[in-house]
Each structure stands twice: as structure tokens, then as C-alpha cells.
């Protein structure tokens, strides 16, 4: 079969397919009801997550404050230790400065 015949055959098949639209009436039945149910379910899931996030805010704020306090305490202790070392070994500070 040559190319032109195949093209004509294809065109005829396309025309047939266009005329024979798939019957989707069964699938369409009560579609909007199912869709709205799914939309509500998605919105509820979304609102649960949003609510949980808001409820967790005080917890995370408390964590942030605790971490800041702990961090400042550690820094102060480190500074004090550093000063003690330098006081006990006066030559150390000079060596450190020479290195830099």
C-alpha cells in the first residue's frame, strides 16, 4: 500500500474516531459530588497541618530562647577559661600574637 493510500485510510479512521466519541456518561455521574468531597478532604488536611504548625510555635520559640541562653553561657565560660590560661601562662599570649 503506498503512502497516499495510507494517508487516506488514516483520514478516514480519524473521521470515524471523531464521530465515535467515547461515552463518558457513566464516569461523569455524580462527579461533582465526588470532587467536592475530595476538595473538602484536602482542605481539612491542609487546615490540620496549619493548625498543628501554629500550635508548635510556642514550643519552637522556647527552644530558640533556651538555645540562645545556653550558647551565651558557653561563650562566657570559654572566655573565662581563655583568660585563666593566659594569666597562668603569660608567654602564651605573646606567642599567639606573634603567630598572627
Amino acid at each position, binding site marked *: 500500500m503506498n503512502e497516499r493510500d495510507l494517508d487516506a485510510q488514516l483520514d478516514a479512521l480519524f473521521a*470515524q474516531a471523531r464521530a*465515535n466519541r467515547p461515552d463518558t456518561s457513566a*464516569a*461523569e455521574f455524580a462527579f461533582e459530588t465526588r470532587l467536592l468531597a475530595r*476538595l473538602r478532604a484536602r482542605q481539612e488536611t491542609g487546615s490540620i497541618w496549619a493548625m498543628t504548625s501554629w500550635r508548635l510555635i510556642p514550643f519552637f520559640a522556647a527552644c530558640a530562647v533556651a538555645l540562645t541562653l545556653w550558647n551565651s553561657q558557653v561563650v562566657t565560660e570559654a572566655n573565662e577559661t581563655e583568660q585563666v590560661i593566659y594569666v597562668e601562662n603569660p608567654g602564651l599570649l605573646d606567642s599567639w600574637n606573634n603567630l598572627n
Partner: protein
Amino acid sequence: MVSAKSSTPDEQLVEATLAGDDTAFAELTLRHKSRVFGVAARFAGNAAELEDICQDVFIQAYFKLRQYRRDSPFEHWLLRITTHKCYDYLRKRRRSGTLLSVDALLESGHEPSAPEHPVPHPDLERLHAALAQLSPKERLVITLLELEERSIQEIAEITGWSPANVKVRAFRARAALRKLMENQK
């Protein structure tokens, strides 16, 4: 409540939906579902996939309703989403390897593009089996052009390809389809 809105223009229903009235969106769905199902059925592999595609289309439309600009009819915007979803499904199906061979499709009598078709014509079955063998892009362009009778310009707008690109893809898709049909003989 839905029936009272049957004469309301689409744009007003969109506004009402954005204001939080879900029954307005139900009316929009009721009004346009046949068109969406009609297009999606050309691409869906079975009834479950058809339902999934259509639900995804309307869910995306619902959540992206603010992006709808009133410069074209609501149906055009919805059909653009439908086409994109169908294309996504074609790609997903190809990636997951659920594409059946032409022989397997013909032997099983399964018609991939017409989930609820009562008596599939043998020639049409061959056509659908061959369509199922095309790449997602080829199938998209040939379905829109030949089965949905969209113009080159419309397809370019839907897909974001240039009109010249659409013509080239359509030409290649047709050639591939011709070859597949020839091999089936």
C-alpha cells in the same frame, strides 16, 4: 442551590468560588465536565485513569482559580489545564512502563482511548492501539489536531510550542502513526 445558578455566567461563578462559595464551583464543574471528560477520554487508559485525570483537572482549577485571567472564556482555560494533565499522564504512563504493545492491546481487545466505548470497531481499535505506541508529544499533537480538531494556533497556545514546531511535530507524529499502522498489517 446548584440549579438556581444554572443561568449565571461563568465569570460570576468564578468570583463566587473565590469568595468561598463551593456550590458555585460545583455548578462550574457540572457545566464543563462533559467537555473535560470528552478530551480526557481520548488519552485515558481506563475508567479509573479518566476519573483521576478529571479530578486532577478540577482540583487544579479550584486551587489556581486566582490565576484565571478573564481575557478568554473559562472553558478555554479549563481545557488548557486538561490538556496539560493528559500530557502529564501520558508521560507518567510511559515512565512507569505501563505502555502495552500493539499486539497485546489487539489480543486483549482493550481500547486505550475509549474507556466506555460500547462496540469498538476493529479499525478504530487498530488506530487507538497505534496511538498508544506514539510518544507523549506525538500523541498529544495528533489527538488535538485530528481527533479534537484544534487549529495549529490553538495547539501552539495550549502547549506553548511555536506554530512551526506544532506543524513539524504533527507531521512526524502522522508519519510515525502511518508506519505503526503499516506494521500492524
